């Protein structure tokens, strides 16, 4: 069972306390297991009038073939990637 709070705490801990000493230029470093931060593969959407987001909150916006989507950056902090289809275009929204 993934623990969202633990995952983020771990990420922030490493973020704050990792040192330059173990850094090798261009090396791939493992910070967390695969999918510890769960990407969204089956995104669910609501119309704007059902949204509870603060009006000033930042989003990523996309529009293809007349279809538009908004992804809250605060939500993306915990997921990083949304696999979506917008206006027939298969997209990966990344943050």
């Amino acid at each position, binding site marked *: *069972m993934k623990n*969202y709070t633990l995952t983020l705490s771990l990420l*922030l801990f490493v*973020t704050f306390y*990792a*040192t*330059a000493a173990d*850094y090798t230029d*261009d*090396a*791939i*470093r*493992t*910070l967390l*297991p*695969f*999918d*510890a*931060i*769960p*990407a969204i593969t089956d*995104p*669910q*959407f*609501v*119309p*704007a009038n059902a949204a*509870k*987001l*603060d*009006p*000033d*909150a*930042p*989003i*990523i*916006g*996309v*529009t293809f073939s007349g*279809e*538009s*989507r*908004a*992804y*809250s*950056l*605060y*939500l993306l*902090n*915990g*997921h*990083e*990637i*949304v696999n979506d289809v917008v206006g027939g*275009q*298969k*997209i*990966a*929204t*990344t943050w």
Partner: protein
Amino acid sequence: MYSRELDGETYTFGVSGKLWRDALLMYDHQTRTLWSHITGEAIKGPLKGKRLKPLVSTPQIAWKTWLLNYPSTLILSVPTRDGMRESLNQDVYADYHASQRAGVSGMEYTDDRLPNKSLVIGVQVPAKDGTTQFRAYPLTHFTKMAIINDTLGEVPLLIFHDKGSFATAVFTRNVARDIRTFSVQDKHFVEDNTGTRWNLITGEATSGKEKGTQLERLPAVNIYWFAWARYYPETSIYR
């Protein structure tokens, strides 16, 4: 923002938990190749060397401004996980954004042309000789004027950043076979040298015989200087 289609195949992406050049790597579920989400390039695995096609988006904008311009938009709903609702109105990285700390590895950054945590708009355009030209536009340039008319290599560019909504967009200034020059009217509305008025959130002409015409939008990112310079050290800076 990338296309999930490549060479006729469709991929889905997850978070690898691995870091490369101070940014998380994505992986695709189909081949487990590792991809940079900064460059879209596959750096390890069966698809190494392939590159995802970048797509245009509005990389950041206030929800209310987006909604005003795209009233039929849908918005990603809050997933429920382990019976807990995620926080919708809180930035878990607020401390990081407010700090002077650059990156997650603690490494030293040496490109001191700008302070590490300066926010820039990163733009890349292809040059005639097959290379790519990079330029960083510091957001500090947009405090008085929301737009910059510029030319990068061969490409005439309109760079837009609205400090109120934090909206960013990059367009070419090529319209109907000529190169336009733009000036600010009010908020995100501009007028070009032929008198046509444009909405730079949607990129659409709002007046005259060109009404409804779209400016050609280019991929744009809001990014910290240290990260942009780390990935694209050859970048120039708009001064």
